[in-house]
């Protein structure tokens, strides 16, 4: 299965700068599993990095619109050519009103965009993983991967398996708590955390003072100890007062959701992460404190730490989390043998996921879940867990769902979308409808397993495949 090319867009809006990436891609079958996947065609269009337009603290709607149009034009893409997209909104742009305005602007141009707004550190860790490390994680099935997104103020930790984030955490470990004059260690500014750290280490220093080499080493040693403890699951360093003060969101490696998992491999992102990867690729280290902070030194210490460097992997893009990476991570393709007798029903936008039913659900639970969908004027979505592909289980559950639909007198025109993790979409749909005899607008999309999403966007079918994006954080509950 190889489909005609489509265009996908990735947008990044930050406090200072914004940029866009537009790539031509097509959906095709994974060569081994036959599972559909996105494959890029050729080099993407990358916009220049521009200053994010603000009027005061508010984004400048008109100039944003001009920017969007300019990027599409430069990539020879009409808005209607864009089959999907993702946007990462961070910093000042992520403030509530700005984020809403930006989302509206983007949606107006690119209907199916997945928009992620990083307004808390946990989400930043999630986005960093999805934007940088998810592809690497998916490519190493079953292997835990811990991404450390180390920037100026924080280190955001996200542990994932198979491209899905399992846990997040955040430490106040970063390059810019201590700002210095480029080329020297003369302090120009100290954050509150830096003041506490220096005090805790017995270092008396304030802006204008020059840090001695052993003082720099002590600061970095503290940071490295926290990072090493986080990645090895060692709790002790976080139990001191100083250690506790450097924790924003606790990160507990153990107990992991699957205790039999091997120790995680590591990847890095963020400014410090990029510096580490540049060194690994043989680039010379920038001169001392070139960037006016301790980032270069922190990167060097990470490389010198056997704990941090021995299991370090290099993700795509050398640790730069991107909206395009996010797009790839949040957009899934359905299996190619789905149950979709009426493809013209698609696309369906922002369909709510009302709950989950499984082979062990009672008839009452199945009724309740379907009744929720029935009450929605736009129809809705349920996830279905079959616990395997036992033929009997599919037939039995299909028959029970079909019976419940009849009992509820489910409206024939109301869309009901079932999302199934296993490759049984056509079989389940066939058993539910008695091979099309039950008058119901049923869509069964298989090989999709949303873990945390509340809403789903279902794109148009391209060759036998449907692109599906999930958004809205929060766990869909089992019907009860």
């Amino acid at each position, binding site marked *: 299965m190889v489909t005609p090319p489509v265009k996908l867009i990735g947008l990044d809006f930050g406090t200072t700068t914004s940029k866009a990436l537009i790539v031509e891609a097509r959906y095709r079958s*994974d060569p081994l599993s036959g599972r559909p996947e996105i494959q890029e065609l050729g080099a993407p269009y990358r916009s220049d990095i521009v200053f994010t337009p603000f009027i005061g603290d508010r984004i400048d709607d008109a100039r944003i619109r001009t920017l969007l149009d300019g990027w599409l034009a430069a990539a020879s893409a009409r808005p209607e050519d864009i089959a999907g997209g993702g946007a990462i909104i961070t910093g000042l742009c992520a403030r509530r009103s700005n984020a809403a305005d930006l989302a509206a602007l983007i949606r107006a141009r690119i209907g199916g965009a997945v928009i992620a707004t990083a307004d808390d550190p946990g989400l930043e860790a999630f986005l960093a993983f999805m934007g940088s490390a998810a592809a690497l994680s998916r490519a190493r099935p079953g292997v835990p991967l811990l991404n450390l997104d180390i920037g100026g103020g924080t280190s955001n930790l996200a542990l994932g398996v198979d491209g899905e984030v399992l846990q997040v955490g955040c430490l106040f470990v970063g390059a810019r708590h201590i700002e210095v004059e480029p080329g020297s260690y003369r302090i120009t500014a100290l954050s509150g955390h830096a003041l506490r750290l220096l005090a805790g280490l017995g270092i008396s220093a304030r802006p204008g003072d020059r840090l001695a080499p052993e003082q720099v080493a002590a600061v970095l040693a503290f940071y490295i100890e926290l990072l090493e403890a986080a990645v090895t699951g060692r709790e002790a360093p976080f139990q001191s007062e100083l250690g506790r003060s450097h924790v924003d969101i606790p990160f507990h490696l153990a107990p992991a959701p699957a205790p039999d998992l091997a120790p995680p491999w590591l990847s890095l992102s963020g400014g410090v992460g990029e510096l580490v990867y540049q060194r690994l690729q043989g680039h010379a280290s920038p001169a001392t404190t070139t960037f006016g902070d301790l980032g270069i030194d922190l990167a060097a210490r990470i490389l010198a730490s056997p704990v941090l460097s021995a299991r370090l992997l290099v*993700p795509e893009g050398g640790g730069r989390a991107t909206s395009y990476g996010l797009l790839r991570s949040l957009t899934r393709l359905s299996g190619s043998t789905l149950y979709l007798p009426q493809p013209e029903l698609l696309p369906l936008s922002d369909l709510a996921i009302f709950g989950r039913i499984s082979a062990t659900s009672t008839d009452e639970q199945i009724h309740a879940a379907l009744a929720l969908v029935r009450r929605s004027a736009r129809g809705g979505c349920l996830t279905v867990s079959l616990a395997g592909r036992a*033929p009997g289980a599919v*037939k039995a559950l299909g028959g029970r769902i079909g019976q419940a639909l009849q009992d509820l007198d489910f409206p024939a025109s109301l869309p009901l979308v079932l999302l199934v993790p296993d*490759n049984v979409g056509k*079989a389940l749909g066939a058993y539910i409808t008695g091979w099309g005899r039950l008058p119901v607008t049923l869509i069964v999309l298989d090989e999709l397993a949303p873990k945390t999403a509340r809403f789903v966007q279902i794109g148009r079918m391209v060759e036998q495949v449907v692109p599906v994006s999930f958004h809205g954080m929060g766990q869909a509950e089992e019907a009860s």
Partner: protein
Amino acid sequence: MKDLRPLSEIPAPAPRPDELYTIDVFGEQVAFRGLKRLLGAADHSKAGERHAGLAAATEREREAARCTLASLTLQHLFDRPLTTAAGQIDEVMRVNYDIDLEVFAEIADLTLGELKNRLLRANGRELLRIGAGLTGVMAAALCKLCDVHELVLLASRISCPTRARTRLGAPGTLSSRLQPNHPTDDLRGVTLLVYWGLSIGAGDALLGINPAIDTVENVSALLHHLDRLRRKTGAPTQICVLAHVKTQLACLERGAPVEVLFQSLAGTETTLRDEFDVSVDLLDRAYRTMAERGALKGEAEQFMYFETGQGSELTYGKHEGIDMTTTEALCYGLCRRWDPFMVNNVTGFIGPETHLDNFEMIVSNLQDHFMGKLLGLPMGMAPCYTLHSKISIEGQQIATQLLTAAGANYYMDVCLGTDRMLAYFDTSGHDDQTLREIHGKLPGAELLAWALAMHIFARDEHGAIVRGPRWGDVRRFCDSDAELAELIKATPAVHGFATAGPRPADEVSRVVRLHQAAAREAVACELGEDQLQAITPLRSLHTAASSKDAHLGDPSLGARLSAASLAALETEPATVQILISDGLSAEAVHHNLPALLPILIDGLAACAMPVGVPLLARYGRVKLAEPVAERLGARVVIHLIGERPGGDALASCSLSAYLLYRREDGEPGPRHEYTVISNIHEGGLPPLEAGAVLVEKVRQILEHRAAGNRLESLVDP
């Protein structure tokens, strides 16, 4: 560029009636009617010759044939061109007469026995000089008189170096053709396999892909991709995508980098024309096009690449009564017309119907190598096997040891010996390097220089070339671990890159062998009727194959019903019939039917499609659906059949569904049309889902009264 002599200017003697060759063997008269029969009987007994009735019945008869051959003069062979069934000299035979007539005149009166003695006393240059005066038939006859030592010794004296971008076949070298085949031409898989091969010093002969999809668009994309990989790595070699010659020429027309032009060839015109869709005229034009517009024009001295191997003519039933060795030699006589850069012999590829076991494969490879070199060809060898033959990796390795001693120019580098697209087993880059180390050979000079600079190879303290510190470091070519992981994820049967010396590390070899063992078991496994009857009642049928060996050795038997089964079947009202057969993997049937059959029956019933009681046939082949459809009067036969196992244990349980549509009497076009749903197993299309897919497809077939391409064009015009 070589001048191509017009076919009309190549003189060939007029055909003569077959004559009777008789010889007295210890008082017993042994007779052979015609040269074809004599040539066939003089060869070793091989499966293909036995099926064709060409093999000698006894050792005495074989030696009698050899004695007779040895007594014939070269002039005798010259004067009796082998003809088609219609008594004609075909194009291939005519090209074989494009020889150096001065040399021939010098040796025409020698008997074949005398010629063999003369060659054994000659040096390599003389061997090549005499070879230029021989037709393929003469080379084949000669090789039938040679024992293994003689085949190795004579070939080892002959050197046939060529040059495209780099030089191939220089004395002291052993090169490899890197074959990064992928079942879906996935560029990531291709990339990984190219990186891996280069990381172990392979690929100096060629980077060459057998495409899964032979379209101009796809082949062009593969050519451009190989070109990018070659430029990115800097590896000095040449590239090729082994599509049909017409496809490659169309790619060249569109600007794709066609550096070396490939085509499979055969030793009879009917095979060339009907099966390979080529002719001498087409290849002449292709040769001239490459000389004028090929990507290496002005740089390459040779730019054609041919693939051959014993048995293709026989498999297609177009051997014209000529034995496999002789048709192979005729193919070489054809190849040399276009002065190829490389010739690749893949004897063993077809299966047990041509070469049953290790001996047959090994001796055929030695014969082919010798004949090719004697006729002046740059021979690369690919002693290979499929898992439904009795050829093993040990036999393959013995063949490569002998062929290396005989001076083969190159082998294939198929990662871990497992071809991911063609479901057969070839030599690997590990094998190439192992043979280099055993036989004191080196890669081609250009690639060696590159590999030294890349520390893939190094010089030891004595100046000798050894594996270097980066030998086997595939990661070096990737920008990130993510990239490498992505490439690995896209590539089947990559069981590890760990090495021990030039070999795969033992843990890697063990996994490879386990997968092969599982696949062999899938082939050997007998259909378990009782367990299948437990799913649903089945009607048993018998094919014309009376045993597993007969089934594997002769594909035509499994396509026919036994007389008793044929007689037992009568026309039924059911529109749809379900036929189950083992094909080449009974395991596939056992694994998939319990989930597939119930939903298939449920679905057909729910859709009110009249279906008969399913039929079960042991030792069946795909075409068995045709007599079943005809006999029962079914419009559609759903034939569920086990696929040929490859190097992946999971895929060894892979089932295919051939949906046959029997067209109405009198409709134009083929009587039977097929839609195929393949790769049915838990790792591919799960059997439960496959059942639902099949119901939907059968509905479409009946609605549109078509299957295959015709159905697709009606459903999606």
